[in-house]
């Protein structure tokens, strides 16, 4: 098997917090031992709710801040061991697109300066060359350079601003784009336009993606493989089709059941998940989902379920996974 483009091993990220009085508040276990691979040309979707640690995980990949422990190997180099200039150089092939385009574009800069900044920062080419590259990039993301290069972010719509952020992200020909809720703030018609742009860049530039979002259908649309995250841990990973058609983890099932469907025959959600996610400062022992899980038993509190492969690269961290339809998998689920 070929070497993965990005490989995260047991990534842990924790933050010390203080309570309102300023005294010791505890340690938020934002990411607790996350392991995954992204192959070249592949899109890994990460779904999770607020507080699941998916954004923290994304930032840990970027070493901003560096994870507390674990390794992040990108193009054969362990980023967690690099410092300063070496880290910068390794990171130019890994770029980010954030949720709020207006928050990530300097309001006082014009589009041309915004898109050419990474070229300048990495000392790529002459001024004339940069100018030509900016025009090329704006064309690539579907903005007419003559109309938009001289504008300020406030003169753009949300969708246009996100296109500018994407143009900036691909300016240095990265091999991996990490998108953190990159289309969540856009209206549905504009969202479809931007999703298609991501697909176009994938096929034209051979990009790989880590696509983080809370919207399951959206993640399925863009991903080859999907990872479901809950309270700092991955609970299920696998090929998109398999995870959505035959979810193995009860949490994945609950997430899928919560999606409003566009056919009214489906009516109201069948099962709604009870209660609230526990605090990441004192997560439950064993399986972190057990406090809300309909299948939880004593074992779930005592032992942390390990990720195991139930066939076809479909892995789950659950003592009592839901049954797969194939009879071969049924034997493995009998605990």
């Amino acid at each position, binding site marked *: 098997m070929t070497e993965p483009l990005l490989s995260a091993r047991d990534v842990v990220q924790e933050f010390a917090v203080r309570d309102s009085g300023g005294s010791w508040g505890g340690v938020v276990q934002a990411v607790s031992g996350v392991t995954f691979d992204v192959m070249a040309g592949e899109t890994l979707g990460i779904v999770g*709710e607020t507080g699941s640690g998916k954004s923290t995980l994304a930032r840990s990949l970027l070493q901003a801040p560096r994870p507390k422990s674990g390794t992040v190997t990108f193009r054969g180099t362990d980023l967690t061991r690099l410092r300063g200039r070496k880290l910068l150089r390794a990171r130019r092939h890994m770029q980010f697109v954030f949720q709020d385009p207006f928050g990530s574009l300097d309001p006082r800069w014009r589009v041309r300066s915004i898109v050419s900044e990474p070229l300048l920062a990495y000392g790529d080419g002459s001024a004339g060359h940069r100018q030509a590259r900016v025009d090329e990039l704006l064309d690539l993301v579907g903005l007419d350079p003559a109309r938009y290069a001289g504008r300020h972010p406030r003169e753009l719509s949300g969708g246009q601003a996100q296109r500018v952020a994407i143009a900036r992200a691909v300016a240095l020909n990265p091999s991996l784009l990490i998108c953190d809720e990159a289309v969540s703030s856009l209206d549905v018609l504009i969202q479809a336009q931007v999703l298609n742009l991501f697909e176009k860049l994938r096929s034209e530039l051979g990009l790989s993606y880590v696509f983080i979002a809370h919207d399951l259908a959206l993640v399925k649309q863009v991903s080859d493989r999907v990872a479901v995250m809950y309270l700092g841990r991955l609970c299920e990973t696998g090929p998109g089709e398999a995870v959505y058609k035959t979810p193995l983890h009860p949490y994945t099932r609950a997430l899928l059941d919560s999606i409003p469907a566009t056919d009214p025959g489906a009516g109201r959600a069948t099962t*709604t998940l009870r209660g609230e996610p526990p605090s990441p400062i004192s997560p439950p022992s064993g399986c972190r989902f057990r406090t809300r899980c309909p299948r939880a038993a004593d074992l779930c509190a005592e032992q942390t379920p390990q990720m195991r492969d139930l066939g076809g690269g479909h892995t789950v961290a659950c003592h009592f996974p839901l049954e797969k339809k194939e009879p071969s998998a049924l034997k493995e689920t009998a605990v």
Partner: protein
Amino acid sequence: MSEEALLEVTDLRVAFAAGGQEISAVNGVSFSVRPGETLAVIGESGSGKTVSCRAIMGLLPSTAIVKGSARLRGTELIGLPEPELRRHRGAQMAMVFQDPARSLNPTMRIGQQIAEAVRTHRDVSKAEARAEAIELLRLVRMPLPERRFGEYPHQLSGGMRQRVVIAIALACKPKLLIADEATTALDVTTQAQIMELLLDLQDELDMALVMISHDLGLAASYASEVVVMYAGKIVEQAPAGQLFGARGAVRMRYTRALLDAIPDMERAAHTPLPVVAGRPPDLAALPPGCAFADRCAAAEDDCRETAPDLAEHVPGHRWACWHPCAAGDNSENGDIPS
């Protein structure tokens, strides 16, 4: 239908004067809400869905020019003086907003905020208001209501805060609740919890619910009647079952486009979504014809010249289009770009 309507909105128009221009946010909107009904108002940013509802509630700034009529149980709300409007607002109709954190006072205990809402509208003692606030917390399924009474908003999660906001809105058992993107800021599992709660409460209190949303999926799952807005006008209206049924009858191409743009679980990964190019028109310079014409694949000259009126072409189903999609055809017809 109209004589039994709880809320009857007729030719509602809202414009804002800004920098010498007049921005027409709502351009002649008419709909009615029957008691106990769930109406979904669907549209993108700037379609006028929120402005319409705020106009009905009398919550627009003084720069807004509001025309038309909105009658709640026969009482005309548009142009009603503020003190009188205040009697209706809260008691007869209430509104829940998108961001529960901003709807609550961060420095005040949640129980007191609910009790305050009770005492604003009714002459009850503090002790009675407190008891009622705890009862309201119980009504919105808040665990341990007595303990939660003394907590501050920052101690609660987003879903719990939205429950508090709903409790405040229900303090006077209104007959009409307007939920403006009330679940948009929440996670999908929390959204399902809050929607279930709203529908349960609607049954318990025999209340009409108007849900404003950008999410057609939410409308399909929870609403009985759906109104789709574009550029300040209603472009299609039908019962949800009729609009989204297996042999669905979406006739307006804009509604069709909204449906097609929703990522679908059945669609294979990496297949391009059908998209509509462009973006909504400038509300300060609306075209004389159909506002969607520039983005519509089926647009012809007549679309650009005259705006089609919203008319009831099929019993219960209204649309505003010169060249509607064929009936019963819910297949995609958006443009798939190469």
